[in-house]
């Protein structure tokens, strides 16, 4: 779809917009509807749009697969780490109160960090699943016609 002019122009305009909107939704989860899941899915959708138009290799050059693996685990680990931090500082698991002095500020900080972890993991997992499906198509093409790919 690289040659289709309309798609390219619109995509060039939309993809950064969607990513920016995903970041907005992520960090304004406290004040308006939004939060980690929505932001993660939106970011992944922007990347999928990029791959649909420019191809999988370009997509993987932007966000390499290794980074997707590491980040998806890192998001969940961040969540668990915040929980353990609550334990280490004297409270229960995932208790946000001991993190800072002001309990309200501590809750807000905890919520932002936790949602960040969720958003990162969701985005990376969705991108990873899409990559798996698309790459399967390429591999199937190779496996069924091996005489063309020597």
């Amino acid at each position: 779809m690289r040659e289709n002019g309309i798609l390219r122009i619109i995509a060039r305009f939309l993809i950064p917009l969607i990513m920016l909107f995903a970041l907005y939704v992520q960090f304004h989860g406290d004040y308006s509807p939004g939060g980690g899941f929505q932001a993660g899915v939106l970011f992944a959708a922007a990347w999928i749009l990029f791959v649909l138009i420019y191809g999988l290799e370009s997509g993987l050059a932007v966000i390499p697969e290794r980074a997707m693996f590491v980040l998806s685990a890192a998001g969940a680990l961040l969540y668990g780490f915040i929980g353990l931090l609550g334990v280490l500082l004297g409270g229960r698991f995932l208790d946000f109160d001991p993190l800072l002095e002001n309990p309200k500020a501590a809750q807000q900080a905890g919520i932002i960090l936790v949602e960040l972890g969720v958003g990162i993991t969701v985005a990376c997992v969705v991108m990873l699943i899409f990559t798996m499906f698309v790459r399967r198509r390429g591999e199937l093409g190779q496996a069924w016609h091996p005489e063309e790919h020597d």
Partner: protein
Amino acid sequence: MELLGHYNYYIVVVLMMIGLYAVIARGNLVKKVIGLNIFQTSVFILFVSLGKISGASTPVWREGVELYSNPLPHVLILTAIVVGVATTAVALALAVRIREAYGSLDDDELGGPYDQDDPAE
């Protein structure tokens, strides 16, 4: 008026049954997965409509608003949607593998014995 108070739920039940029919009656695996998703979405509509209060607003705190809709079903459905997409992804991956191993995605062709697994003669 009982009927008017409940028509929301009736429509949800009809949607559920349409999804259930797709899961049971259609043989194609992808169509089954789509039917499962329709079923899930109709259940979400049921839960969210349970939580709505007439004349209330979205559960985001604002000045001057007294009545809020119940936020608890929203929390539940948010988690359920994400789990639903996870299940759909794994189900579709299974469908891809089934298609490769057995050559077809239709129930009738997947049931009987066939010789693709026997050692070559």
